[in-house]
């Protein structure tokens, strides 16, 4: 699958050129230039975490990984010989070491003297605003603090490749929002390549230069966050950004759930943009009520609470959905 909107790195030059094949789980090409932040999104089981683990050398890999002109796969490099930082989903801070020693760990194992490693670790904790917690053990830290330590630990040795596996999973919304802003700042000043696996469209939109959509182990789409959000090619991304996407033979049609009209009687007019189905669920969404309707496909529609009551839109109710032609965006199937 071609890398469409971003100028890819040239082989042998700086940046990441990887052809990741893990039989039965992943078959994806990913490229990035130094300083680029790539968000990897996709449904559960799409191979997102496998992609990070393959780059790190934690799963057996067919294919190749080249970072800044040096191959990590031919000859194969051990995990510890790869210049990478890995932020794990569960943080995985060493429970017996203080926050400071956790952050200094990567520097110490790469041969930095104890005092200098400690000084650098203090700097990193300070950048995350938690240097006063340097002496604490992980169990004495909150989720947000622990995740800051984990990110600082991964960044401290200045790796060429930073791999973040859902860094905001399991955090409170408020904490995640604050941390997302902080991370955006750190990633802006980070001159390596960052790959960020996320479930959250917001992460992709706020943090990434490029979005890579994985589906069934393959790259379904790459592009700028704006492009991917505006013209999603998979149901998953459509759901993430809150759009309905319909794939036709040679093109995609997408439309916003607020553009959908819900009625009990069959609507008049264009036959192309209407569906008959039953309400599967109804849940508050902002000021509106978001309906999930099972027609020949699953579609989402936003209606007012008043309309919900008036039409009796409860799960099981048969409804008609229709969209005006002008509200539908059509784009080509192939890579743009």
């Amino acid at each position, binding site marked *: 699958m071609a890398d469409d909107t971003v100028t890819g790195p040239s082989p042998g030059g700086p940046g990441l050129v990887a052809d990741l094949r893990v039989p039965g789980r992943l078959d994806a090409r990913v490229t990035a230039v130094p300083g680029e932040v790539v968000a990897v999104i996709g449904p559960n089981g799409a191979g997102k975490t496998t992609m990070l683990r393959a780059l790190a050398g934690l799963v057996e890999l067919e294919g190749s990984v080249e970072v800044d002109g040096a191959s990590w796969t031919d000859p194969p490099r051990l995990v*510890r010989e790869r210049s990478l*930082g*890995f932020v794990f989903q569960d943080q*995985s801070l*060493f429970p*017996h070491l203080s926050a400071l020693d956790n952050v200094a*760990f990567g520097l110490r*194992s790469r041969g930095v003297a104890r005092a200098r490693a400690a000084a650098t670790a203090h700097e990193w904790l300070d950048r995350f605003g938690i240097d006063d917690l340097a002496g604490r053990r992980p169990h004495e830290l909150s989720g947000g603090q622990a995740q800051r330590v984990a990110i600082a630990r991964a960044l401290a040795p200045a790796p060429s490749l930073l791999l973040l596996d859902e860094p905001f999973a399991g955090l409170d919304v408020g904490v995640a929002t604050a941390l997302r802003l902080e991370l955006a700042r750190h990633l802006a000043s980070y001159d390596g390549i960052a790959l960020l696996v996320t479930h959250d469209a917001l992460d992709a939109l706020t943090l990434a230069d490029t979005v890579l959509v994985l589906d069934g182990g393959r790259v379904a789409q790459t592009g700028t966050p704006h492009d991917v959000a505006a013209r999603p090619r998979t149901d998953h991304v459509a759901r993430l950004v809150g759009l309905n996407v319909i794939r036709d033979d040679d093109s995609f049609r997408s439309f916003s759930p607020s553009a959908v009209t819900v009625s009990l009687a069959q609507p008049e007019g264009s036959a192309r943009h209407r569906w008959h189905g039953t309400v599967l669920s109804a849940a508050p969404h902002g000021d509106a009520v978001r309906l999930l309707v099972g027609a020949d496909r699953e579609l989402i529609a936003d209606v007012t609470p008043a309309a919900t009551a008036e039409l009796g839109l409860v799960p099981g109710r048969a409804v008609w959905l229709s969209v005006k032609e002008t509200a539908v965006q059509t784009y080509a199937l192939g890579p743009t």
Partner: protein
Amino acid sequence: MTTHATGRTLGSTLGRPPLALVLPGALAAALLVVPLVTLVLDTPWGSFLDQLGTRAVRDALRLTALASAITVVVCVALGTPLAWLLARVDFPGRTLLRAAVAVPLVLPPVVAGVALVTALGRNGLVGSLLRDATGWTIPYTTTAVVIAHTFVSMPFYVLSVEGALRASGERYDVVAATLGADRWTTFRRVTLPLAMPGVIAGAILAWARSLGEFGATITFAGNYPGTTQTMPSLIYQALQSDPEVARTLSMILLVVSVATLAALRNRWLTTP
């Protein structure tokens, strides 16, 4: 609401415990407790210190302390790497080796002694080679005592540490590798510190097993005062000639055993 409170309420509302359970239970408790009480009562407390001062007792005490201390050191030095190999390296025959390591746990100590003779005895497979090469023989020396103790104690240590290594998992080893640490550094700075509770429990178990070791020692090392006569061997000998000494020595070992149990209290005696 605590489980404690729940248990109490249920106990009083569900009725009396049935005799069919109370009687055998009480009998079992009596069987375990009465001999300990009588041992305490029969200990010649009046001459306790005098007994401790006799040469035979002092020698046996010294030898037991020495042998059990060296045994623990050998278990830690050799058993920790073995536990790590069993827990972390996928080599052919690993399952078989783990089973073999556990065998001395259930092996009658006398059989362990006989097995040691076949390997390290004067005419044993390794022992004869050693004798031909250096003229040195192991049986009936203090070295033999330490070897016998290590043979029976090591499995307790290895299984305890291996369990701790498995429980802490490979997860942190992976994290350390992504931070550039080699396996030796990872072992020193991550794996071993995380397995420390298992190391300590294993060392205490090995030490306690070594203190009481009798069968393998007397078979392989004999019962020579000053060189191979440990406390249990002396108790066995004294029981025939001087029961008071036997009781005194037994009392000492009982105290040490109870102290060991107290040290392990947090691990085993606290009910979940």
